[in-house]
């Protein structure tokens, strides 16, 4: 565990060192081209590298949750299958046996999996899985934002701000309309 953490730290430091070096090297010509593509490229590279390095930790975490998710599913499957196997010999061997076996199989599997999905351990792990997936998505959004910014396009955050502003404007218009209506009704 300690070794794993050292290795992660080593790669993180190495990546940060070289991206910083590249940034510093490329900042020399900035006196000439302060907004030029080379500066953009180097500063973008630094941010992207930093995001990707941070994402590594989250990928490991995501993997752990994913492994636990599949483990829970597979354990439940195995235990349900065992229960089916123990019940199968009791099913009468006649023309209806296929239908009866199918019914037993579905009932046992349904109960076992509903039990799992209803449990605290499933909910906690599943939400952990979603949470780390969202962390990864946040990193991806940050990387996309860097690229959008360098292309002089609005970022996700800026677009969200516009949506929020439109929303607040609509609410203000709605309130104005409402008060206008009340005044008109009072006049009537």
């Amino acid at each position: 565990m300690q070794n794993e953490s050292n290795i992660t730290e080593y790669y993180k430091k190495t990546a940060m060192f070289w991206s910083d070096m590249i940034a510093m090297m490329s900042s020399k010509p900035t006196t000439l081209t302060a907004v030029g593509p080379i500066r953009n490229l180097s500063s973008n590279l630094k941010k992207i590298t930093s995001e990707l390095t941070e994402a590594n930790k989250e990928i490991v975490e995501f993997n752990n949750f994913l492994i636990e998710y599949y483990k829970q599913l597979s354990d439940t499957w195995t235990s349900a299958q065992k229960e089916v196997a123990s019940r199968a010999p009791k099913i009468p061997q006649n023309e209806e046996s296929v239908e009866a076996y199918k019914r037993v199989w579905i009932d046992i599997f349904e109960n076992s999996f509903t039990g799992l999905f209803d449990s605290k351990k499933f909910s906690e792990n599943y939400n952990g899985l979603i949470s780390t997936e969202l962390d990864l998505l946040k990193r991806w959004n940050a990387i996309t934002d860097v690229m959008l910014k360098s292309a002089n396009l609005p970022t996700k955050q800026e677009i969200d701000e516009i949506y929020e502003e439109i929303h607040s404007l609509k609410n203000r218009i709605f309130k104005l309309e409402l008060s206008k209506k009340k005044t008109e009704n009072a006049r009537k």
Partner: protein
Amino acid sequence: MPENKFNPKIIGEFLNFGRNLVEAPMKVSVPHEVKIGSTQFDVAYKEDKMRLLHFKSLTSKQIRTPLLISYAIVNRYHIFDIDPKKSWIRNLLMQGFDVYLIDWGTPSKIDRFLGFDEYVNGYMDNCMDFICDETDVDKVSIQGYCTGGTLATVYSSLHPERVKNLIATAPVIDGWKDTTVVSNIAKYFDVDKLVDTVGNMPPEFIYFCFSILKPFEQGVEKYLKFLNNIDNEKYVDSFLKIEKWLDETPPIPGELFKQWIKGIYQDNLLIQNKMYVGNKHVSLKNLNMPIFTQVAVGDHLVSPECSMPLHYAVSSTDKILKLYPTGHVGMIASSFSQKIVLPELGQWLKERS
């Protein structure tokens, strides 16, 4: 040497299943080409993506008080009118009701900041204004289904003077008492992170929540049954319509979803009379109009324990709680609902309209 005995019935079933599997694409329509919704309507009012549908009358005489149906925020309204023989809308029209329905539409990214306030005090209240103006009445009856039942309840608490009767069909009321898988996932859900990162609640996620409710009955058995019945025209038609309806799940506006998960499932504010919508206090004690609470005993989406507390929390003296031996969808779109649920509802509503 033991003699091998093959059951001819099993072999026959196996061969039949194989044949159906191969022939299915030739016999059955492409699911996305299937038309759902059978009753004619006009779009009476429109605001942003929300539409107020007014269904065309099927009787010469109509009951005076109109009925506004607030559909759920999950899936589309078509389940109310998916098949003429099982249509909730058609049945009410045949009983002489003047039926309006709110179709919340499909929210996009620009709608992520819409919350309870906009839905209840904005869209719903504007629909009520429109209906009152158009039909020249002061009060309208409201029916809400599932999460739409919660919206109708909140609306009735904030604007009781406008609601003639409230019908809550499988409403989500007491989140802590809900025993479904949905509530189990909601309990530990980091909804702030989801909304901040992706904006609206993605339909794929909603679909996942549904698919784990009855994974084997809904995910395996249903399709096996379908393949065994591909020669049964009625069965195939009904199956494809339901599948198409399930597939058309719109996203839920981020803010509304956040308020929903926190307010209803995690903090359970509504039943405790601690909820605020647009700075206004939502108290179930304000519900003094006649109230009909409809609950399905076999509901695996909103458990009966989650809906029933509404009946006991309101101040109305004219109230009724009915438990039906069916499921969440069965209560509104089945032969059972046509024979039992709708006639009872119609009778109750006629006496108060």
